């Protein structure tokens, strides 16, 4: 329930703190994000801001997109995301949000799409231990083993950890620190790792 901003992950590096310790950090090019739409409790049932990120060339925009972004009059944007807020009174359509909404030391949560790993077995996907390499084990070294009991319960429980698609899904990391904010370059420096590949779009929200 708090304001945030959209950004693009640029990559990770390591910098030195004022006390000399090395800090792993992620650099995000965030904003400026215009408010495309303001949703309020009376008309929409909840309070939220719809922010745009990554402006599109006119040639690439469709008419519905252009129509949707017309009220804000700030161009058409490739990525639109909603940020739930407690109150929308201080925001209006067309207002631009920049990295200034954050200050160094803020706790944030970052949401993005994780790197896709494809269809993976249980050892990689769920950290199962697999089967021994020898002692009579044949062709089952990476298999999950038993997935349930016999006549009772007579089924495999829902949610059993099995092989399947890993990654390429929405992931939120909470409790990350903002190390530095650079309004002149629209940069945020966040301590630690955030989901997704380089150039992936992420939502950064205050906690």
């Amino acid at each position, binding site marked *: 329930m708090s304001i945030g901003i959209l950004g693009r992950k*640029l*990559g990770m*590096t*390591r*910098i*030195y703190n004022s006390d*000399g310790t*090395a800090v792993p950090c992620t*650099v995000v*090019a965030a904003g400026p994000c215009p408010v495309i739409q303001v949703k309020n409790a009376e008309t929409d049932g909840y309070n939220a801001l719809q922010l745009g990120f990554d402006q599109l060339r006119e040639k690439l925009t469709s008419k519905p997109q252009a129509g949707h972004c017309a009220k804000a009059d700030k161009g058409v944007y490739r990525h639109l995301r909603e940020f739930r807020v407690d109150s929308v009174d201080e925001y209006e359509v067309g207002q631009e949000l920049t990295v200034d909404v954050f200050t160094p030391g803020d706790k944030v949560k970052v949401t993005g799409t994780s790197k896709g790993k494809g269809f993976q077995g249980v050892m990689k996907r769920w950290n199962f231990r697999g089967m021994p390499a020898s002692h009579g084990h044949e062709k089952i070294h990476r298999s999950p083993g038993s997935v349930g009991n016999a006549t009772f319960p007579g089924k495999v429980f829902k949610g059993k950890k099995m092989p399947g698609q890993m990654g390429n899904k929405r992931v939120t990391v909470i409790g990350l620190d903002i190390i530095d904010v650079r309004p002149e*370059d629209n*940069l945020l*420096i966040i301590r630690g790792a955030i989901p997704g590949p380089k150039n992936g779009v992420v939502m950064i929200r205050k906690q």
Partner: protein
Amino acid sequence: MDVIKQLEREHMRMDMPQFKPGDTVKVHLRIIEGEKERIQVFQGAVMRIHKGTTNSTFTVRKISDGIGVERVFPFHTPFIERVEVVSEGKVRRSRLYYLRGLKGKAAKIKQKNVWS
């Protein structure tokens, strides 16, 4: 990527002297014990330089009371007060891991002739 390189440059130390594997260096290290701060000197041969931007490190090996001691220093850490190059060594490789298997006189690195 350029943005990250720029950012890293701000955190890099440009005051470090040039040294190569095989050189003997004195690393003056700031040690903070509670409130007090003192300088500790670690002298030995540079065994390896791991290149990088803010990630780069160098390893110094010395023989302390007959036991080989290796220490890895981050190149750009503010904990290093300064690095002094004592002498230049004459070596033919960039990673001097072979020093680990040698003792006494064999582990000595030949000094480079410096013509004045």
